[in-house]
């Protein structure tokens, strides 16, 4: 074929002219396409990515569900097949109290959370003719993991399907932005399962680990449900040491326990040791000191501690060990574990610097005490 004569091509693509209709079509067609269908094209591309993440989430949820069911069947010998009952648990929901209540909703939230915990414990117990406290707390935590993963999957699926149904690209944007954070949380939950199955200490347990060491060789007394305290002495100060009862997988009831101990023993200062979320760029296991009640959760325990401290004018000091979400709920890593002695030393320094001899100091180790006794 002879290509030496390019006049025909020139005619079609208008390299020499400025009004070729074919060339105009080539330029205008994509513009028209993107103006009218741009969002749909973006929706298709974004949907593909979200679908991939959604199937990963579903996999996490299915794997964690199967792991829990197998754990119960193989290790705990339940009464009959627990699958149906467990599947019902995974769908449990909580309706939060009306938040326009002028009288305060904290007592209502507190009641709701405790009722949920108590009911779940009873339901777990009812699945076995014989089960010890450690296993009950482990199963409760594992149930919480599967329920959260199921909820995350359901929410992501709902937002995705709604956007698809409405063919609405802007509706999918918030989901696209939130998905990396949701996936980070989901992966952390999935990775937490082995530690909970074997009752190994998790990163969140650094507070109970520090205070548990201070409680060794002291008489332990019950402060509240799954919460213990003991009395000790340091440099002429009376120490009241409080933590969840280990090695169970529980955070105890630090709010109620602090209330009753303050009413009974009237401490002069409160020191709280807890794990705290690190900011990006901060080192895992770095220690920070501050003021205020260092305690996470839904907020009811913090409210109780703040209220009783304000009532008796007791200063609250905090000492936190920084870590990521994943570090906090998976097997305690070496960086965090290696800080135990350092944190304990800082607690003793805080006691000396902020109290006088003959005064009383309440030290609270906040967090899940799984795998950490006292």
């Amino acid at each position, binding site marked *: 074929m002879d290509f030496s004569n390019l006049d025909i091509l020139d005619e079609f693509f208008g390299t020499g002219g400025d009004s070729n209709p074919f060339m105009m079509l080539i330029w205008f067609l994509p513009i028209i396409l993107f103006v009218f269908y741009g969002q749909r094209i973006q929706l298709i591309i974004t949907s593909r990515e979200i679908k991939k993440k959604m199937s990963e989430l579903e996999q996490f949820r299915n794997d964690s569900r199967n792991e829990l069911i197998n754990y119960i069947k193989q290790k705990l010998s339940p009464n009959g097949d627990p699958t149906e009952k467990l599947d019902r648990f995974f769908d449990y929901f909580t309706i939060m109290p009306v938040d326009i209540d002028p009288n305060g909703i904290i007592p209502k939230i507190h009641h709701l959370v405790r009722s949920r915990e108590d009911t779940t414990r009873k339901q777990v117990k009812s699945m076995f003719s014989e089960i010890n406290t450690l296993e009950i707390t482990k199963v409760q935590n594992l149930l919480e993991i599967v329920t959260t993963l199921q909820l995350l999957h359901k929410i992501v699926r709902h937002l995705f399907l709604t956007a698809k149904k409405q063919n609405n690209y802007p509706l999918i944007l918030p989901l696209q932005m939130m998905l990396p954070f949701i996936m980070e949380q989901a992966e952390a939950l999935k990775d937490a399962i082995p530690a909970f199955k*074997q*009752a*190994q*200490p998790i990163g969140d347990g650094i507070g109970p*680990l520090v205070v*548990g*060491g201070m409680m*060794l060789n002291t008489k332990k007394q019950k402060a509240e449900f799954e919460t213990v305290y003991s009395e000790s002495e340091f440099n002429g100060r009376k120490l009241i040491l409080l933590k969840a009862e*280990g*090695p169970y997988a529980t955070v105890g009831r630090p709010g109620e326990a602090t209330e009753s101990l303050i009413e009974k023993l009237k401490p002069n200062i409160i020191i709280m040791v807890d794990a705290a979320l690190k900011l990006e760029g901060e080192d895992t296991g770095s220690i920070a000191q501050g003021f205020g009640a260092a305690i996470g959760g839904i907020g009811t325990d913090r409210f109780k501690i703040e209220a009783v401290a304000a009532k008796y004018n007791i200063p609250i000091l905090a000492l936190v060990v920084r870590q990521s979400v994943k570090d906090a709920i*998976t*097997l*305690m*890593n*070496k960086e*965090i*574990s*290696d800080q*135990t002695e350092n944190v304990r030393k800082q607690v003793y320094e805080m006691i000396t610097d902020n109290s006088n001899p003959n005064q009383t100091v309440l030290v609270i180790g906040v967090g899940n005490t799984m*795998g*950490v*006794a*006292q």
Partner: protein
Amino acid sequence: MSDKNKIITAYTLQQCNSCKEQSKQKFSEGDYVFKEISKCSSCDGQVIITKIFGESLTQ
């Protein structure tokens, strides 16, 4: 990618409360921190678990 190649192994650190001799062993089920393990072979003190932690091996 690096996360997928990480294998985390749990260890326990045991220490005699008298001579402070330490030994590191692989975690076995039933271990927990401050659990009394046995009498110390060198000084007859009480050996307890002082730490349980995970160390990652990158493959």
